[in-house]
Every structure is written in C-alpha cells, then in structure tokens.
C-alpha cells in the first residue's frame, strides 16, 4: 500500500507560497533600499544649509585646504569653524538668504550641524595627512567636488585616472599614471588597495609604478589598527 503525504501537504501549499513570497519580498526590499540609498543622486543628504562646493571650489577656485585646513596636518581633514565662514561672509553675499542662515548660527554662537557624507567604518584608520602630503589630490577619492552643488559620494567609472596635486596646488592627471581607482565604485577596501598596489612613495610623493610588485602599505595593520 502506498501512503502518500501529498494530501496532507496540499493544505500547506498556500501557506508555503505566502512564506515564499514574503521571503522573496525581504530580498527585494533589501535590494531596493540598496539601489535607492546608494545612488549618490538620491542619497546625497540634505545639509542644514545648502552649501555649494561648486560655487566655492569651482566657480571661485578657492583651494580645498583654505577651509579644510587640517588635511595636511591631521588624520581628519577638518570642517571649518563658523568663524571661518563669517571671515568672508561678513563682506561677501551678505544679502543671500543662505548666508543669513550662516550669520544666524554665528550670532547664536551655535555650530552648524553638517551631515557627514564621506564616512569610513570605525575599524579603518585613514589619515588625510599622509595622502595629502604625498601629493594625492582630494578628488582622487572625493570625486569632482568642485562640480557638486550638493556633496555626494562619487560613483566612479572604471579606470579613472589618479589625480595628483602639483606643488602649486593645480590638479593634474598623474603623468605616470593612467590607471586610477577601481571597478569598485563604493568606498570599500578595494578602492584603497588598488591604489596602494599601483603606487610607490618616492621623495615623499606618490608615484605610479608599472611593475605592480611593490607592496606599499599592504599590511593589514596599515589601516586596521
């Protein structure tokens, strides 16, 4: 006699289907969120004041380190104090509604709560000082900030060039370098490693090496310490 469990399972079929749909839904939801929030066009957060890097660094060609003064001396690049903003905006564009917002913070002696866009996990030790002093341009990692009205993590296409800052502060494509970042357009370990594999430090400056055999800071504890 054949005993089948199929009749017994039949009643569970709908329940199983519902569960399956729900599980698929979880994966879809996760992926949808991933697509939406990791898209820089969408994910660039609203800042308390709609500060435009395009106007400052692009149109008016203010060097990055004029405001981010700590980048060459400290692990963190530093955010300018409200006092620094007011240093110029006591005179410049004082009628603009955005600048009035800045003045308001200044008059209330309150800091502007900027939202952090470029964020590394706490287990990564990155230092701006070393990279800036090695002549690597800010844009190499931060993207063309001078074209952004609203700051966002830059999604890069494959094989972008490594940008080098010349001693005059002018930004050039590294002459020795054609290959820059990486296929990985997220701020993940591959971005760091690719560049570290392809560059050597000569006279304190980062230089592209072709043999690819140089292990410049590839130890785990270069960053994870």
């Amino acid at each position: 006699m054949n005993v089948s469990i199929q009749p017994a399972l039949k009643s569970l079929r709908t329940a199983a289907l519902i569960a399956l749909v729900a599980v698929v839904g979880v994966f879809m939801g996760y992926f949808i969120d991933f697509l939406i929030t990791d898209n820089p066009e969408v994910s660039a957060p609203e800042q308390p004041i709609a500060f435009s890097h395009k106007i400052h660094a692009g149109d008016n060609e203010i060097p990055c380190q004029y405001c981010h003064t700590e980048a060459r001396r400290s692990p963190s690049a530093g955010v300018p104090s409200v006092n620094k903003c007011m240093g110029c905006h006591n005179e410049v564009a004082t009628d603009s509604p955005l600048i009035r917002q800045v003045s308001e913070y200044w008059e209330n002696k309150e800091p502007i709560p900027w939202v952090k866009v470029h964020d590394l996990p706490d287990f990564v030790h990155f230092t701006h000082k070393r990279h800036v002093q090695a002549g690597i341009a800010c844009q190499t990692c931060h993207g063309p900030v001078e074209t952004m009205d609203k700051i966002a993590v830059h999604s890069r296409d494959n094989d972008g060039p490594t940008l080098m800052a010349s001693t005059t502060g002018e930004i050039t494509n590294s002459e020795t370098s054609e290959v820059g970042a990486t296929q990985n357009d997220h701020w993940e370990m591959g971005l760091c490693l690719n560049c570290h594999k392809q560059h050597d430090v000569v006279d304190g400056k980062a230089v592209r090496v072709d043999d690819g055999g140089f292990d410049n800071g590839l130890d785990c504890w270069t960053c994870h310490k």
Partner: protein
Amino acid sequence: MPNIDRRDFIKLVGAGGVGVGAGVVLRESIKHPREHLIPHVLAPEDYSSGVATWYNSVCSMCSAGCGISVRTREGRAKKIEGNPSHAVNQGGLCAVGQAGLQVLYNPDRVTGPLLQAAGRGSNDFTQITWDDGLTRVASRLDVLRAAGRGNRVAVLTRGTSGHLAELLEAFGQGLGTDRLLHYDYDHPHALHVANQRFFGEQQLPYYDLANTRHLLSFGADYLAGWLSPVHHSLGFAQSRHGGDHRGHFVQIEPRMSPSGAAADEWIPARPGTEGILALGLAHHIVASGHYEGDDVDAWQEVLSAYTLARVAQETDVSESTLRQLAESFANTRPSLAIGGDGAANNSNGVDTLVAINALNYLAGNVGEMGGVIFNPDPGGATSHSRQANYQTLAQLAESARSGEIDVLILNDANPVFTMPVASGFKAALEQIPFIVSLSSFIDETSALADVVLPSHTYLESWGDAFPEQGVGFSIGAVSQPVVAPLYDTKATGDIVLDLARRVGKPMPWNSTEECIKDGWNKIYQESDSNTKTESFESFWTALLKAGVWGKKNHRMTETSRPNANTIASIGVDAPTFSGDAEVYPFVLQPYLSTMHDGRAANLPWIQELPDAMTSVVYGSWVEMNPKTAKDLGLTEGDLVDVESPEGAVRAPILVYPAIRPDVIAMPIGQGHTNYGRYASNRGTNPLEILSPVVDENSGNVASNATRVKIVATGKHVEIVKTSGKSRDLGRDIVQTTGGDDHTAQTNSIPITVIPT
C-alpha cells in the same frame, strides 16, 4: 499551479508587501548610522582636530612633585606620561600618576556646589548656586573676622606647596587665624625633626641613590612609596646597572616591601630596633678605627653601650651579619643609609633617624656624591612648616570639642580616614558648627561638611610645586590646566580669593593664575642675568612649554658637623608598644599600598592593579608568616579579626613568607566607608585600630607601635589575586629543602632533583 482565490491573492499581496517593507527596514537598520560633522563656532588656536596636543604640568597625586606630560585631543585629556625633562622623574611615572585621568573623569566627582541640609553624613546633598554657597561661607567668616575672632576659623588642607600655599597663608592672615593646617598622612615628620637635630636643617636633604655603591635602607620603602619613589627607582636602576659597578642594596625591615624584594640582602630585624642596629654599626665603625674625626672620643663614649653582642641580642640579627654590614658600609665608597616608613613610625622614630644620620656622618657620607646632599632653598614654599602631625590634629580636635572653632574649611584632606578611631577626631569635628569642604570628592571627612564648594582637579587648575626632597639643586614646575573644567567647579585658589574679597580682605590677585604668575615673576627677576630671557612673558611661555625650571646651585661642599651636645644626645631606647605582649602577641605594621594613604582607592585602575608583593586586587588582607599561620591553624583566605586594645578589623589571612613570625602586616588604603562607588565598602582600614602611641620627639602617631591578636572567625573567603598558588600542589615540580635539614643531613640532599 494551485488555485488562487481572492482571499489567497490578498494574502499573497500582503505577504509580499510586508516582506519588501521588512527588507527595507532590515537594510536601513544595519546601515552605518548617519553622522554629523560639528565644527567649532570659534576654533581654538592651540589644537588641530585629530592631532594630539601635549601639555606639561605637575602630578599632584602625592607630594613628590613629578613632572607630567598630558596628551589631549579635541580638548580631552587622554593619557598622562612622565615629563622627560623633569629632573625628579625624568620621563617615568608611577601607577597612581598614570591613573590621574580617573580623578578627572571620575563619575563620583562633585559637579557643583552642594548643601547638606539633611544632616551631616546623610549624603543627602542639594544643588545650590556658587553665589549662594560662597555667601553662606563668607557671611560666617565676615562676622568672625569683624569681631576680631578670626582664630575661630580653621583651615585644613592637603599638603600644598608653592605659591598656592602662600595664597592660603595670606588668606589665613587676612582672616586673622593661625589655625592653617596642611595634612598628609605620610608626611615624614620624624625625618624633619631628626635632620633638624643632627644637621640643624628642617629641610629634607637629597639622598643620592644613583651614585651610591652601598645602600642601607632602614625600613624606607624607597621604590614604592617613600618620599619620591619614581626618582628613587631611577637612582636604583642607575646604581645597579648604570655604571661600571653594581651597587649593593640592603633592606632592614620586619616585613619585606618591594624595596626589600629588590635588595641584595633583606634583614628582618625586630620591629622598632632599627635605630639600635644603626648605632651598633656605628659602634663597630668607630671601634674599628674607620672614623678619624677629632671628636672620636665623644663618639666612642656615646656609642659604648651599643656593642655588637648587645645589639645582636636586641635586634635578632646575628653578630657576624652586623659586623659584615658595618665593614662593607664603611669600606664601600660612597655608601648611604636612609630610614623611613616602618623604622620611623615607632615610639623611638626620631631617635632612630638621628642614629641613621650619625651612621652616615661617621661613614663620611654627608655632603658627598652618592651620600646625603643638602638641597638649596627650593625657591618656593614647601608645606612642612604647616604640616599637622598627630598632636596638632589632636589639639585641633580638643579645640573643636571645647567650642573654640566655629568654621572649618576643608580642602582635599581626609584625616577622618587616616586618624585612629581612638583619637575621637571625627566626633570632635562634628562639634564644629559649620564645615565647608573644597574637595573634589565626598570622602569620609567631606561627608561632615554642611556646604561643599568643589574645586577643580589638578588637571584643570593652576598651581606649582617645588619638590622638597629635591634633586640636589633648585627645581620647580608650574601646573597648568590641560583641559577646560568638566563641571561647575572652581580652582581652590579662586574660591579662596573670592571668599577673601567677600570678607573685605581682598588679596592683590584676581585669579590663581595671576598669583602663580606673580610668584614666578619674582623668580624671574631674581634669576641670573646671563640666562635671563628678554621678558617675563617669554620666560613664562618657555616655562610652561618645558614644564620644569631649575637652577645650578649645588651645596655639595657643605658638611655639617654635629656639636658635642648633639653627639651626647644620641641614643635609641627600646620601642614601646601598646597592648600586653601576652594578650596581643603580634606587632601590627600597616604599610602604604599602591592606594597611597587611601586617596587613590577611588580609582578603578588602582583597585585592579595587583599589589606588587602579593598580587592581590580589590581588597584587604592580613600578611602572616607561614610558621605563625601553621601554629594558629590558619590558611590563606581564613577570615580573622585583628584585635588591638582599641578595636578590631576583619580581613582574610594571606600567608606571606617574607615577614617575621611576630609581626602582622596590613596594607593601608582600603576600608573606605564614604568615598564613591569604587572605594566604599571594600576591604578594611587598619589605621582604625591603632593605639594613639605618639613619638614624643616628632609629635606624630607611631603607627607601627600597636600590638594585636588574631581571632579566627571560622569563615573563609577566596582572596582575589593574579599569581595563583605559590605551591606546586604536591607535584614536586621543584623540590626544596630548608637550611636546617640541609645541615642536619650533610652532603646527601640535593636541592633540586633533575629527572634522568
């Protein structure tokens, strides 16, 4: 394909929707949270975000006055190290100094002015404003001062040196009180008196451990607590490994301290007989013709009673050991004898230290490299002249009892913890109508305060220090704030200045900083014109940067000769102890632990730091010789009552081989009842049960002169320690044998069995 009806379809759509929603929520919840970049409104000039800034300052955890460098980031103190340029500690720093951060960040700090209206000791404090608090104090002070009864105000502060001490002095004068007392439990009163008697100098000399080749330490635990342990450790290292010779170190004490463990020889003389031993050595040095001064006859006469045979009998040290010690001490050049801690805290403490001075003099160590060197005037006030000994505090208590004191101002001194209960000190303080505390923490003494006006910690305030035990030349350092005040507290000096203003006796400074600067301006004006900088401001900036100031002014060549009267007065009586030896068979030795006099007990790092000798953490213990423990049937962890004629404390036994069988030792520092969450209700305080035996010469309590008995309670606890068992649990890993067995069965017992 199953049939899907309308109901199932809705279920599926619902499930899908919930699933997608759950997926989004899941990803959002595991995503790195959005952070903010909060800039400064006005950026301070002296730091870059992300870059450490170091400030040089002075450690105030004890009176040694080590220089410190504090690493700060974003205005927060992160780490304390020793200042390499400071001659006292030369970059070194002890555990308590390192733990100074936990004073700053301690969760039990008083964060603002408090009023204890509910009654003293209730710990029921209400927040008040600074103005209210200051007014409450000033109104009382003002009335007393105006009526010419300023002497009814008493000030009791932790030992304070430098210009802050002068500020307090001026405050006392303004009020018209001479009841201004500094109090540190471990202040070497006996040493000051002994040096006054023998050398005619109150000030501590410099003991040059670094250059000595033979150190004889009578009870002074110079590596762990005595005077300036970090400096002594450097000296010890230099003498042992620094040159072409290896210094020989001898420690004479009934219970082995860390210094005893580091010594080449440890000699457990009977407690209180260290001075007799020193005179025995002196006798031998003179008798054998090592001393050739023209007053040799006077010495011979005064030392004639201290024959090696008699001394050997009284000290329980063999005659041959004594002879050998005396010979090597006199023949090794330079040599040095020091005395303190256990040897000084007896009824004959001052006589003992005078005897040790005499030993140094007879061996020719005074004014010599590697011997006793006199310090020049330190350049700033030291606290000794105002330091209260036991008798002074007893007088204060007596005045309080008889209603002669109306206001007591406390500043970080905690005598209620360190005074024996038998002194009745706490009850006397309670008689004072109004007590105000300027301490940063509520401790056993501050708990009696009606008003608490909390001070900054030393990392937040200005001050300076001129280490009294010195380094052989003038040295001082400025203590500068390394962080902005964390709480609504004020600098001690600023509180005092404010009070002085309110009682109509303003001082010439507006702030402590001004007072300190003013003091240093005088030092600058007096400084050598060759090395003088352009202006005081540049001197001040350089001073703060370097964290230390010094002056080339040795007094090496001076030798002080004792006169005939001094020589004739030398002699050490047998020590007296409280309690009948029949009833109380053991001598109790309370010794300074890592917690110092108990002030560091509220620092978790110090609580969890294993004791140097026993490796015990978080608690108290009673050290007992294995033989004594065997006789009493006690093992490690057995809870016992240590009973003196004055009372009892309870702690577990720790079998400790390096202690005389007739001595019991207990660490000082634990047993707080009201000193924050980390210190309170942990361990016991052996100082509680001390008998008030006073060394008449120094006026201080003889803390090693109390006899005790041990009463087993039948209870057992596990002692928490890091070193595990001291035995091999019967596994015979290392076989050993006692010396007696070895001589009994000559040449047949191997010390160690090596398996073949």
